[in-house]
């Protein structure tokens, strides 16, 4: 498979991992928006495989970054559980809906919501 024949694979993975870790630690996100496009661009992954592999890497990245944040005393444990566990159910529901409707309008509405929230964050 083409994915396994790219030169300097380990080096490329190291660069992607480091960038994703920095991004994740800095912003409190998983880092998928760094990993997925780079796996596709540098290692010839197709989108679905890139997304799935990225999810698995994020388990390590987020758990470790959360532990380091824990040392700084920033983690609100109860809130994390109250958000993370229902979110699992939410993702299953969202995936189920996504398979049944074309999300064009939803995507654009959500993009607008993101921008509105960004403005609210900065001004509010």
């Amino acid at each position: 498979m083409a994915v396994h024949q790219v030169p300097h694979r380990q080096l490329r993975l190291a660069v992607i991992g480091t960038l994703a870790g920095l991004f994740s630690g800095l912003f409190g996100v998983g880092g998928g928006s760094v990993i997925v496009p780079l796996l596709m661009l540098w290692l010839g992954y197709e989108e679905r495989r890139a997304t799935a592999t990225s999810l698995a890497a994020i388990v390590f990245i987020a758990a470790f970054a959360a532990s380091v944040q824990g040392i700084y005393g920033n983690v609100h444990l109860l809130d994390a559980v109250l958000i993370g566990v229902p979110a699992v159910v939410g993702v299953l529901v969202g995936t189920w809906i996504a398979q049944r409707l074309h999300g064009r309008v939803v995507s654009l509405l959500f993009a607008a919501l993101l921008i509105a929230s960004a403005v609210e964050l900065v001004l509010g």
Partner: protein
Amino acid sequence: MIGALAVGIAGGIVAGLLGVGGGVLFVPGLVLFLGLGQHQAEATSLLAIVPVALVGTVRQDRYGNVERRDALTLGLLSLAGAAGGVALANALSGTALRDAFAGLMVLVALQLVRRTLDGDGDVPSGASVAGSSVEDTR
């Protein structure tokens, strides 16, 4: 408590629906609805992401979509970067970090718009697996 549950469920649904990560929703949710500071919101979001990513990984692995070796390599080689990122975040003021995060949200929004307008955008070019659609494993 109700607020956190709502942020979790809503964030999860949108993440599953659009294929964006949970963090970009959890962080503003924690700041705007639960009144956490930017640092606390980011730290708490990181922990909340773990179960979501874990369940997603198990599902995707069942479909054979996870390149396990690469995922493990990526995960292990990200640790130094992650520690550096957290240190950097904690070196910044809440305001600076919040403004940078708002910039990130706008970028994600633009990426989403571009992906949507690119002819639905969710059909990978080239090496897709024969005989299966993208939607069936998402």
